[in-house]
């Protein structure tokens, strides 16, 4: 009854015992393998590794776009500047608050939707594809579209609220409404995608567990609570980590939400760290400061991910569930953008 599992059994399990020594003698030396990984690592070293390290170097200097070769050493001044700057803390607070508003409801919704998609359905493929349409819509297009939907005067959102006799907030100018609107864009684009990830995780759960639970008289809710959720824990942790990384580098939505001006709204009400870094570097021409921001962001991401893993591990030790997850999803593509 493990038909729902999509992972194939590794062939090693069924093979004869004498295989291992044979393989060692048959396979040629290891040198040729480097030729196969070389293209990847050459591109990676030139366009990822070198820039990352150089960013650290730049962050210790005073650098301008026009005179990139004339860098003057300033030590930790850029970091000192950053940490004593109100703009940084504003952006940090906004990144965290938008991150929470955009991630928590999104993942809860995705979990619920995945649960429904896991029923036997007519038009299953239709629902799945339709829910993935927002994912296929680009960040730029989605933001431009939502900007018009949330327009304070002409937008259809406020028209609907007007019909319902509800207050019509200024989705652009006021702090919380604008953050909610930006979070709505993110939630719209990613909920269906995460629902599919959860659905895949649910289908990998051994259905014998459900049968056993049903025999023991567990209700649907209890089955969800005590079979589905524990089985999904590695997947959930994976989506939380990926969403955290994505939220920490939020950039495009707040940029386009203010028509491409990188100040995060007239009062910086939705300025994020990613956007601040762009503003420092490309608008204010202070590359050293921008580089310091970039490394600070990286530190924050590592810290956030480690916190997630730590909390998950502690919880798991309490519950006695599986160890750390090794799940990868295409979301990782988005992360490495």
């Amino acid at each position, binding site marked *: 009854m493990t*038909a729902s599992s999509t992972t194939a059994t590794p062939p090693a399990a069924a093979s004869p015992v004498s295989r291992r020594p044979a393989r060692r003698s048959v396979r040629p030396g290891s040198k040729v393998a480097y030729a196969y990984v070389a293209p990847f690592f050459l591109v990676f070293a030139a366009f990822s590794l070198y820039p990352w390290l150089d960013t650290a170097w730049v962050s210790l200097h005073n650098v301008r776009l026009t005179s990139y070769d004339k860098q003057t050493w300033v030590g930790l001044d850029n970091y000192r500047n950053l940490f004593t700057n109100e703009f940084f803390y504003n952006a940090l607070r906004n990144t965290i608050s938008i991150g929470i508003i955009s991630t928590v409801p999104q993942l809860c919704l995705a979990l619920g939707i995945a649960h429904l998609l896991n029923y036997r359905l007519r038009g299953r493929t239709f629902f799945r594809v339709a829910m993935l349409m927002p994912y296929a819509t680009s960040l730029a297009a989605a933001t431009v579209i939502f900007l018009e939907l949330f327009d304070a005067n002409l937008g259809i959102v406020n028209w609907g609220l007007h019909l319902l006799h509800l207050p019509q907030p200024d989705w652009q100018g006021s702090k919380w409404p604008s953050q909610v609107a930006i979070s709505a864009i993110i939630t719209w684009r990613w909920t269906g995608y995460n629902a599919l990830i959860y659905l895949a995780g649910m289908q990998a759960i051994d259905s014998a567990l459900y049968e056993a639970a049903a025999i023991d008289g567990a209700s649907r809710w209890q089955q969800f609570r005590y079979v589905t959720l524990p089985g999904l824990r590695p997947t959930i942790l994976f989506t939380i980590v990926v969403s955290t990384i994505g939220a920490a580098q939020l950039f495009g939505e707040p940029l386009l939400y203010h028509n491409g001006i990188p100040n995060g709204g007239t009062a910086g009400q939705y300025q994020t760290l990613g956007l601040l870094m762009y503003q420092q570097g490309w608008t204010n021409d202070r590359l050293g400061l921008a580089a310091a921001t970039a490394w600070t962001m990286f530190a924050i991401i590592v810290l956030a991910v480690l916190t997630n893993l730590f909390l998950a591990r502690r919880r798991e030790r309490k519950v006695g569930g599986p160890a750390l997850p090794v799940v990868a999803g295409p979301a990782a593509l988005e992360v*490495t953008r």
Partner: protein
Amino acid sequence: MTSTVTPGAAVTSGPAPRGTDGGGATARGKVVRGKPMQAGPFTYLILVVVTLISVFPLYYTIVMASHTNAEMAASTPPLLPNGSLFGNISKAFELAPLNKGLVNSLIVAGCVTLGTVAFCTLAGFAFAKLRFRGSNLLLGLCIGTMMVPMQMGIIPLYMLMAKFGFAGHLQSVILPTLVTAFGVFFMRQYLASAVPDELIEAGYVDGAGTFRIFCSIVLPAARPAMSVLAMLTFLTAWNDFFWPLIALSSQNPTVQVSFQSLATGYAPEQSIIMAGTLYGTIPVLIVFALLGRQIVGGIMQGAVKG
């Protein structure tokens, strides 16, 4: 074990290399007795609502793009499309080089997809089936980098491109995204289980070189995973915004970057912005409608791999 290796053998004797959307669909039929319960009307109701919310912004884009601005400003906004669509699109062409953007996006996404699939399949094969010193370290390095934000490298990267004279040209966007760590990991996970070690050994015994084995055993078996990786990479490259925005100018943009000139133009008009956005988005939505099943399958397959 020692039979001559042919491309066909790799496919048929591999342990069930899945089709792009095999898993969920076939598994479903067999599990009927077990968990998946028949959905009730309430389930359908919620799913329909969710579907409407997913599609509505796209539908309303068509509505907005097909009216004049004056019509959109009416006290009751229109809910059905109207006739001004083509007029608005041609006005949008004056604001932003949309056609150039589409062609550029096609070139960029095409090159990036080819490069990513080729390089990641090569590296994934080495990590899955060849043994060499430092392979674990290199793979760990590769996976660890998925955590590094794009922002980390853009300043030196921009300078590097400027030094090469690539700034403003498509090479500057293509080169850095030519490989992804995810792609390597994805191909490694797939090939580790889709190609039996025995088959590769048989190839060596028969005197085939590693490259010959890669071409005639691994490539045919890897095809389903390669097409999944290709679709996901293409979509990601097509929709990429941050780095193209920095590397390219508004005269030679990808389509995503050209959206920005629509919205930042002097006195932007809602209908024209929407018409331009619609025009630039429709190609990928059409492709998505055609390949939607496969993309859904690919995402779900990627989620349980590993």
